[in-house]
């Protein structure tokens, strides 16, 4: 059971009904107080089978190289005026994050490209998530599917809750916005994933999820999840 008051964006088609050959998308729940504040906030997730070989293919590395050539200083600066990237900046401000300090995912990726001189390949999953965010400006995260219980959603953390279910899981301050399953918080919204819930070398099934905010059309979220999943499983 999802928490009471779960809600989603009322003015767009349900991801379950989305046509096409892409991944089977599911809409996550949004806790009522959060949905009241951000009616257009949505979490979209899909399942993903991970291959045994987690090295990036030559094609993936070529794509990263091509994107490295396309993103320069001027592009990085102009990102904030692009509708989708700008929408995440605005949402960051609405949830108390300063986007010039805590960078939005796409800006963080492009800034790192500037600092390192290119998008660096770090393995198939990481590269797939990077390609998704750079192509669409929509962030995608991956969680280990095994420990999850029910669908993912967004809510505010309660008193004495921990980030994840591991023994070493750190406490989260009450009120902090988190991505949770139906049992406990798993990740800070736009932040760290709790210990034990990251995708590891032993993980065989993962859940990809993305967060849609006001001003971001659903097709961009769909595209981001499609880019990530099709990079990992091209067939």
């Amino acid at each position, binding site marked *: 059971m999802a928490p009471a008051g779960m809600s989603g964006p009322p003015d767009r088609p349900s991801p379950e009904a989305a046509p096409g050959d892409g991944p089977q998308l599911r809409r996550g729940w949004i806790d009522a*107080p*959060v949905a*009241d*504040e951000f009616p257009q906030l949505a979490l979209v997730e899909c399942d993903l089978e991970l291959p045994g070989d987690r090295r990036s293919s030559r094609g993936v590395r070529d794509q990263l190289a091509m994107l490295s050539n396309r993103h320069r200083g001027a592009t990085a*600066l*102009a990102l*904030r*005026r692009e509708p989708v990237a*700008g929408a995440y*900046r*605005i949402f960051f*401000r*609405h*949830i*108390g*994050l*300063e*986007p*010039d*300090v*805590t960078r939005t995912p796409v800006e963080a990726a492009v800034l790192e490209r500037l600092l390192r001189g290119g998008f660096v390949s770090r393995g198939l999953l990481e590269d797939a998530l990077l390609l998704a965010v750079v192509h669409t400006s929509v962030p995608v995260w991956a969680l280990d599917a095994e420990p999850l219980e029910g669908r993912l959603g967004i809510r*505010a953390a309660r008193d004495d809750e921990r980030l994840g279910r591991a023994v070493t899981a750190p406490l989260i*301050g009450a*009120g*902090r*916005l988190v991505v949770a399953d139906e049992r406990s918080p798993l990740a*800070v*919204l*736009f*932040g760290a994933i709790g210990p034990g819930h990251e995708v590891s070398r032993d993980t065989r099934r993962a859940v990809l999820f993305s967060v849609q905010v006001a001003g971001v059309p659903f097709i961009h979220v769909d595209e981001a999840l499609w880019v990530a999943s099709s990079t990992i499983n091209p067939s």
Partner: protein
Amino acid sequence: VAQQTLQQPFSEVPRDACRAPAVGRSRRRGGPDETAAARRSLRAQIAKLERDLADTLLTCFDHASVDLAAAVAEGGAGSGAAAPRLLTLSELERQRDDLARRVVTARQRLSERATVHERNRIRLERMLLAPGHHKFERIANRDLGLGGCGVWQVRPRLGLVGMLAGWWEVKLSSGCP
């Protein structure tokens, strides 16, 4: 209140237009609906200010305006440890006021810079018209709001001969080391 403030330019919105009405002031004011409307209005203002700030930054950004870009971003330096959360009405107000202050600061600096560039462009035109009246004066492209590191300089033609004969010209040197 929310509809009214949304339609007004930010500068015309009364300072306390979106403040939460005092509890108990009247039965209609301060209710959940009005508070929610005020929060919506504040979020809309924050969104507009964020876009304005981005526009200002990109408008002014050139090779000589890095300091202005830093000024635009400097307001956020103190909020690095923030966590994502639902902001209270007063936090939204502070956020809005901080952004408004940064937009105003950025626009002021942009305006000051434009004035300086304009003054330098006029000076350069005068140098070009009458080089002899502006001996050895220099204006860098940076001071004209242009990219590159070129420098306009009034110099005597043919060196010492030109200096004695009063033959002056304006040369654009590359300026780069």
